[in-house]
């Protein structure tokens, strides 16, 4: 329901607490990062103006581009799997009754597991000696070792993410489906619309809004992924699963290269911001077109 809003500048006072809090927890730290990114230090808290040198250095560094490429590939793959799979699961959800609640509860379970435990679960699950998955694959004669083999590591990390987050997409899509009035389906039945047509012209447009939320959330979170792959593979084998966040933490907290790490942070943040802005614009336009 879009209602006419009144113009009232005093509403700023209502927003003030949020503003103060977020300023404290976001603006100050972000300024620190900006500050580091333009300075150089020889220790002893002595800092020198370095201008854009760190940015130039980082842009020339292959390490960052590799991490970015891996990150892009990862996000693209999991979106390509999770979105269709989530929609498919939502379409097959029981419509009402006990089983609906049951499915909802079980499906939400992976979402509430702490991220490092998600990593631990899959680390154990995939082990050839004590894990069900690893053991089964081994027994079937398939060579599988996520700590040594690049492809196995990628498959493990991707399957883990699918396990972890597909339910989010499914739940959102399900919520979208629930909001479709029965009359639409009856009309489609009268017109003898095929299952595919019902999906294409009734269900999909009605889900568009929530699906955009799903894609936005999944994109943002997958782009920031850190804990799960870090626990399972530690970024390895080699650097094969070193995504942007893992690389950044390695640089900032591991090697304490503050300048480069800060420059890296800012560019990382800008990339996320840019892509999210595109998503957000598309989403608000969809909202408007639907008129709700």
């Amino acid at each position, binding site marked *: *329901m879009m209602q006419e809003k009144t113009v009232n*500048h005093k509403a700023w006072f209502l927003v003030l607490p949020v503003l103060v809090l977020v300023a404290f927890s976001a603006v100050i730290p972000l300024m620190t990062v900006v500050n580091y990114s333009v300075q150089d230090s020889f220790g002893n808290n002595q800092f020198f103006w370095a201008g854009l040198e760190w940015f130039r250095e980082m842009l020339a560094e292959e390490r960052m581009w590799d991490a970015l490429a891996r990150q892009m590939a990862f996000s693209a793959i999991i979106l390509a799997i999770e979105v269709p799979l989530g929609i498919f699961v939502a379409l097959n959800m029981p419509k009402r009754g006990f089983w609906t609640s049951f499915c909802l509860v079980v499906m939400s379970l992976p979402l509430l597991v702490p991220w490092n435990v998600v990593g631990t679960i899959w680390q154990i699950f995939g082990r050839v000696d004590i894990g069900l998955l690893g053991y089964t694959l081994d027994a079937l004669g398939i060579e599988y070792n996520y700590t040594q083999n690049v492809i196995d590591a990628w498959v493990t990390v991707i399957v883990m993410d699918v396990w972890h987050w597909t339910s989010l997409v499914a739940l959102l899509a399900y919520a979208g489906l629930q909001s479709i009035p029965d009359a639409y389906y009856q009309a489609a039945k009268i017109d003898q619309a095929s299952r595919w047509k019902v999906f294409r012209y009734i269900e999909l447009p009605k889900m568009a809004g929530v699906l955009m939320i799903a894609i936005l959330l999944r994109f943002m979170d997958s782009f920031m992924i850190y804990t799960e792959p870090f626990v399972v593979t530690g970024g390895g084998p080699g650097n094969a699963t070193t995504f942007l966040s893992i690389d950044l933490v390695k640089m900032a907290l591991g090697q304490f290269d503050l300048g480069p790490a800060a420059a890296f942070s800012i560019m990382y943040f800008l990339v996320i911001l840019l892509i999210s802005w595109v998503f957000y614009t598309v989403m608000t336009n969809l909202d408007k077109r639907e008129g709700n």
Partner: protein
Amino acid sequence: MADLTVNTGATRKASRIRVNGSALVMTLYLVFLMLPIYWLLNMSLKTNSEILGAFTLWPQNLTLANYATILTDASWYMGYVNSLIYVVMNTVISVAVALPAAYAFSRYHFMGDKHLFFWLLTNRMAPPAVFALPFFQLYSSVGLFDTHIAVALAHCLFNVPLAVWILEGFMRGVPKEIDETAYIDGYGFGRFFVKIFMPLIASGIGVAAFFCFMFSWVELLLSRTLTSVDAKPIAATMTRTIGASGIDWGVLAAAGVLTIVPGALVIYFVRNYIAKGFALGRV
């Protein structure tokens, strides 16, 4: 006649197959979700020698020793207490500050409102890895390092924008006439908001709280960076199981199972709002 029977028989069969198809898909999906969790539970009930010695689909010598280790050792169970403390603090703070802001966004146009809203959302998009180091320095310099409130405030970074986003969605669904009628009846803003408006969006508040709880509970990078001993979260305590003599798999699995329990309880209480909640009130 025979034709007709065959025909209806075929359709009935077709529809039965479709229903079963749905059930099959859901069963497969739920099994896929539950198997890794079952495996963790299974391991947590075994002794280490059984875990490493024999491959068994269920515990042969059922033991609760791993759980006993955790529940009797303060350095273990305090991890859960610490996590719960900062998660609850964060949930309360986030929802409390988000309520008035969400009301402002849902009801009024004001200078820069659209930009402000997007700026808030950008904080949800900020990678925690970017903030880990500056947070560490900020909270150390104000003497809050290794306290619960530090983690609670740090998690506000992503939870406050999310809470505002969710609540705004729910508030949009409440007709504006209710506000106007209340004001005409002589309600002040504060009394109207608490007595009339908040009960109307109670489910929205519940959903927002659920999400704040969830994202604060599952986050590790910031909570680990900001704590060392006194406020150490359970997720960080779990690394203790990796000792000189190898990994204590049984205890690690038991600790993992116990981290799933609070989430499972919370889900059970909000199960009827889950779907709408995940759509952030926008359905």
